[in-house]
């Protein structure tokens, strides 16, 4: 099971990669919106976690692009701020507020993979 983790903070990528690999997932990362699309096309992950606030292409646009290229791909929005009033994020499959406690994230990923 391959998970693409997208975030502009390298420390966070490192943390998620370590934690999710500990859970037994194959984890690939991208450091920006642009890289996210490249990695997504190259690695064909099964699940994507996506930060919203990124300097080049923001997470909403990346989400739009990903769903257009591959409508079935599950995308989990993983952000520092609760954007759920923004209808655009509603088309993602799940929404998780970042927290140093990764329990919610891990549970959500598990749920999505099971649903698939």
């Amino acid at each position, binding site marked *: 099971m391959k998970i693409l983790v997208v975030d502009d903070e390298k420390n*966070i990528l490192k943390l998620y990669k370590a*934690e999710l690999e500990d859970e037994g997932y194959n984890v690939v990362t991208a450091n920006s919106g642009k890289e996210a699309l490249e990695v997504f096309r190259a690695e064909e992950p099964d699940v994507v976690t996506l930060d919203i606030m990124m300097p080049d292409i923001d997470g909403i646009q990346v989400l739009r692009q990903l769903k257009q290229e591959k*409508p079935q791909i599950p995308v989990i929005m993983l952000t520092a*701020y609760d954007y759920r009033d923004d209808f655009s994020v509603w088309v993602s499959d799940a929404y998780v507020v970042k927290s140093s406690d990764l329990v919610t994230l891990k549970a959500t990923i598990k749920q999505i993979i099971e649903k698939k």
Partner: protein
Amino acid sequence: MNEQEQRHDHDAALKAGAYASDAVSHRSTDAEQLRRLKVLHTITTSILSITDFHELLNNISMESVKFFNASGSILRLLEEGNLKVEACWGLCDDIKAELQIGEGICGQAALEGKTIFYNRSETDYVHPATESIEVGICTPLKIGDTLIGTFGLYDKMTVEGKTIPFGEEDRITLEGFASVAAIVIEKSMLYEKALRQEREAVSAKRQVEELKDYLQGLIENSPDAIVTTDLDGIVTSWNDASEKMFGFSRNESIGKFLPNVPHFLIDTEKSYIEQIKRGETLKDLETVRKTKDGNIIDVNINMAPIKNSSGKIIGISRIGRDVTERKRIEKDLLRKNNELSRLLFISSTMRGTLELDRLLRMVLTAVTMGDGLGFNRSMLLLVDEGRNVIRGAMGVGPANHDEAWEIWSRLSMENKDINTIMQEIELGPLSKDSLIDRLCCGIDVNLDDDTVLTRAVKEKKPFNVTDVRTEPLSDPVLIQQLGTMAYAVLPLISRNKVIGVLWVDNLYSRKPITDHDMNILKGFTDQIASAIENLRLFEHVTQAEQELENIFESISDLMYINGRDYSIKKINRAVAEKIGKSPDEIIRRKCYEIFHGMDSPWELCPHHKTIATNQPFVGEVDDPNLGGTFLISSSPLFDKNGELTGTVHIARDVSEIKKLKEKVASVERMAALGEMAAKVAHEIRNPLLSIGGFARRLEKRLDSDLREHAKIIVDEVRRLEGILNNTLSFVKSSVTERREVAAADLINDISTLLEPTVNDRGNVLSREVDHSVTLLINYDRFKEAILNLVGNANHATENGLITIQVYSESVFSEPDLLGHRAEGKEAVIEIKDTGHGIREEDLNRIWDPFFTTRPTGTGLGLSITKRIIEEHAGRIEVESKVGGGTVFRIYLPLKGGPA
């Protein structure tokens, strides 16, 4: 008698005189008497030889002076009772004055009828006429007893030049002389009279001859025909003008009965002759005569009797004048005058009419009335530019021959003039039901056709179709529907644009339409065109005025017009409603009283500012009196001289908007706060996440003290994250807040928002809402979901029907272990359209994000809708058929129903 003979007689008389004076003193009485007779004879002979009366009298005076040795003589004749000096000798002029009988010496002699002696030395009174006279003798001149004058001698002189008185002898001689002289004078007077009469007769004869020549010339050269006849009408003279006028020569006419009297007038002519025979004169007979060519000409004739010298009527003179031309001109003039006055009247009446139908009726009546232009039938057709046709507007005329005769005879009996009829049209009821009117209104000719009607419009030219069978462009519709055989069409041109045509024909009278008719009609059509155009303009203006008035009245903003003096001139309904008074109670009152409840103009009032500056003013004014905030525009009104007459106000109650604005401002502030919060969260949460995350990893791998230390970091980060979450949720409104909303309110809201968009596409939005249904929803989000669905339905449908239905239905839960099903209720919101539907292969994909069949769609609408419904524990289903419309059904659990 010649001059020499006269002198000889004179000399002879002098010799006789000298001889006589000697005889007075030296000779015997017989000799004296003889001498006297000789002298008398000499004088008589000499005076009798004189033919000229005045010369005779002068001669008598002169000869007697010599004979009596007097200084002067004077001969007076009685004329009209006075003694007038006819001849004198040797006397100064001042005694020649006329004397009355009894006045002076002569007057005395005439009065007494005998010879008078005069001697100044023996007289007390001296008449002014005889002042210069010393002595005199005067004797009356008589024929029988009739006095004809007097003859006096004055101042008898001796040879020595001494004045001596006249003696008795002198009296006898003078009386003798006077009796002879009187006879001579009388004879001479008779002769003179005869001579004068003869001269007068000669001169009269000459004058008659001249007159005759003159008359002859006049007759011959007269431009009038002058013909004389005898009493049987046999021509006796025939002048040049007669030859010219009637063509018969003098030779052909004289001796025959008047050749120029037409056969049918011979009896009349004879009756004229009878009248003349009775001595009457016939003046200005307007009759006709025939010419040699057989033409009949109009003449004016004067007939008078010719009388002979004894006054007996012996013939007749006729003076005739050819008045054909004059008559023609007269007729022309009369007709032109009539036509002009009719046209003037009609056009002035037309201009006074403000209804198109009445105007058209007037025009057509004027064209068809006998007293008007006198056509049998006429129609007006107007150009409809929008449809590119020319269409019948109105027709006037009888339906058939019988009706035509009926109308004509009635009109001639009623004897109504055009004036009356026009007034009847203007004021009376307007019926539009005649056959020709109905036929006319059915006429609709495409302007692309090539016919007389369309050519009249396109070429702006009148056409006179004299025979429809020979005119290839004749309008079939006119021939078929109106049975016309010949007609004329004239364009109605106003401002260089053809607005219609006038059509006329003479179906019943078969009278050909002449060039003259066409000219009259042409003059008339200009009037019609401008009258119609004026009327149309008037109607446009009236309509525009009405529209403006309607807008003014129905506009929801307060609109009112103020005069310079702050009095209110005009208000719309909104003002009356806002103030709560009727317009009558508001108009003419001061605006500051009505609107602001003040006694004097309000400083903040926009009207006040506009009056002061002549500039428009727009501003928001808080008016405590009206209880709200108003956006007021005040614009100056100027009259045509540029003088400010007042202002027009538009005031909008913006109290509500103001509140909304405040709300928006607060939301914006919140949003800004939210954005800041997002930034803070990002900047703090991310490092916290790294710290906390890695601390957790360390905690798992470390032992004893170090593990304890790592745990401290983990706990502290969790605490910080907690603080952060709390802080952020303070600035964020809860997204999951729900409340109870009546389904009807929700659908009302949605309809209000979408109705204009729906109507734009020709769709109808229909609602069937069960008012008892109450939903527990997050209002804004749920509204978003329904808006998406109705919006989609509208996009899929054109000129169709969109129905929103809300109802509730019972549902049963899955059977429990005992096979019981719990009963609950669900609300169903159904959005149905009659649009193009969804293809079967797309039906599964519509919920996918970014799936769209519209080029400009985002593809998010249905995904978001589905997510919102699911958030509310509901579900959504779709049913669709290509070409058969689509139905979306939303099921929401109601209170007490299965969750």
